[in-house]
């Protein structure tokens, strides 16, 4: 097509307005237009979330949509926060998020290290079993797991949400971190061992720092999972003061004698998004690197 115009020896970039270059610009522009349009499409519902959190309760569903509330109801935030003991809910959520997160990431890393670096009989078989538990529906385990905790009389305690993290680690995390460990050259560990480090020291001082991107991404995924978890706190916690943020928010959807407080629910949701959003914005580059280095291979 354009070869008749462009001399083959010239790189297309040198000729300012060759058809090839125009074509490139048009395709670039189209790409930007498309990704931006999609971006806006993805942003609209979120924007509505924030704007609704600043509206009066009975104006949220007004027609036509008010994108910017005439008088922003900033007091929705303190009102919602004080309608239920949200300060307490926040601490509860932090407790059932951070404690298991630390344990889960550390244990998963240890297990991943074992699978990546030590040849033991049955390693591949056990690894396959581990991967297959990823596809095991939680629903199948839900009721017996509940009964196990009930057996120990730990219902309405935080234990069911916290203790499990010490056992097992998370298959997805183990899988991702194993990929990372496998890509670390063996010489690095050998050097550490020659320097007199034992396995645990090699692991914490040498290997863990090397897989930082993976640690970061699994931490973000894990944080998000615990932070937004709704089913487990709903099942295991009974007293109101022990609730987490998600369960607390649920009460704003209305009850038998109470009208739903959508504006409060929106305000709390907006607040709940913030920590994850900040984490993601700051760490997104590492996050993606951590998810994908070594590739997702079956």
């Amino acid at each position, binding site marked *: 097509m354009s070869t008749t115009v462009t001399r083959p020896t010239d790189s297309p970039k040198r000729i300012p307005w060759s058809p090839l270059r125009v074509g490139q610009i048009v395709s670039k522009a189209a*790409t930007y237009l*498309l*990704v931006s349009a999609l*971006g806006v499409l*993805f942003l609209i*519902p*979120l924007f*509505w979330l924030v704007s609704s959190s600043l509206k009066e309760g009975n104006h949220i*569903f007004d*027609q036509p*949509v008010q994108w910017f509330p005439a008088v922003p109801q900033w007091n929705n935030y303190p009102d919602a926060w004080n309608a239920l*003991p949200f300060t*307490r809910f926040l601490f509860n959520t932090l*407790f059932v998020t951070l*404690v298991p997160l630390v*344990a889960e990431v550390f244990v998963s890393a240890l297990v991943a*290290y074992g*699978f990546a*670096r*030590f040849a*033991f009989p049955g*390693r591949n078989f056990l690894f396959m*079993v581990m991967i297959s538990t990823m*596809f*095991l*529906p939680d*629903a*199948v*385990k*839900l*009721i017996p797991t509940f009964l*196990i905790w009930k057996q120990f009389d730990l219902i309405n*305690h*935080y*234990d069911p949400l916290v*203790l*499990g993290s*010490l*056992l*097992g*680690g998370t298959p997805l995390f*183990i899988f991702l971190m194993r990929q990372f460990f496998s890509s670390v050259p063996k010489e690095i560990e050998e050097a550490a061992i020659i320097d007199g480090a034992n396995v645990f020291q090699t692991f914490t001082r040498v290997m863990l720092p090397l897989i930082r991107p993976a640690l970061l991404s699994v931490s973000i995924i894990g944080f998000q999972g615990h932070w937004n978890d*709704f*089913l487990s706190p709903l099942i295991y916690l009974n007293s109101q*003061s*022990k609730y987490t943020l*998600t369960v607390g*928010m649920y009460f704003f*959807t209305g009850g038998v004698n109470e009208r739903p407080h959508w504006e409060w629910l929106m305000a709390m949701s907006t607040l*709940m*998004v913030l920590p*994850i959003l900040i984490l993601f*914005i700051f760490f*997104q580059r590492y996050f993606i*690197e951590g*998810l*994908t*280095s070594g*590739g997702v291979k*079956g």
Partner: protein
Amino acid sequence: MVGDPIGDYLPTFIRFLLLAVAVVGISIGVHYVLRNVFHVRREVAIGYSLITPWILGFLVFNLTPMLATLVLSFTDYNLQQSPNLVGIKNYDTLINKDVNFWPSIRLTVLYSIISVPISVFFSLMLALLLSKKLRFIGVYRVLYYLPSIVPAVAVVLLWRWIFNPDVGLLNTALSPVFNLIGQTPPDWFGDENWVLPAFIIMSLWTALGNNTVILLGSRKSVATDLYEAASIDGANTFTKFFRITVPMMTPAIFFLVVVEFASAMQLFTPAAFARATPAAGRFMNLLIFSYGFEQSRMGYATALAVILFVLILAATIVLFRSQTRWVYYEGQEK
């Protein structure tokens, strides 16, 4: 602060520490026994002792509950009385008498079969788009990832408004089209025929970001020398796309399809909040929760869980079997 936070956290935290010590102890014990009793090599002993926490977790939180579910599904356990064996009664009642059963299977299976390919396809397109050298790539990544970080509770509420038949965003936007063809816009969650499309649209918005990020990574890890070699051989853009890009990405696509399918079959939070008309059936996981925890029919609910498990297992096996036909692994002869 309300209640007694320290009194609530501390005992759990102490038990957490004790369990941590116990797990470390067992791991070291495994190492000791393997070395001194079975005299295995040091490397083997360390390997087993490192994966001990996982083995413990597998036994306690996977194997035991699974077997227990299977056993409970043949009983009439209701949390109060001790369980009695009732044979296949639960399964019989579910399949032959329970009016909720078939609609629930239909909704769950259709939702998974339709939503997963659509969402993976769009994610792939989006990932390919984003893999071009773009400025502000970080901004787009954040934008697309946003939906997956909003708590499901808020997402569902958002969609309840979007799908609201009278004042919702979607029907407001669609009403000129529907006026044109002389139809009334759909009632979405309120109309049993539109519940499924509504859930699919909703899932698309949520899953797209997550999947795109994973596929984007996979796209980036396709070695550039493959493209260079292809260019030298005279391949055009089209050929490169279908002969290199897509095949090299199939492992990631496969991984996503399997994971997404299993999670679609287990949809819970959106299903719990959407307040869709029950006429369309309820998602299986929601029905399990309702039977087990709201009605305390644990035995009956576990029978449903077993059926859900069998469905997911069957789908996973079919998917894994299909692998040889379309998934390309590096270093493997075709």
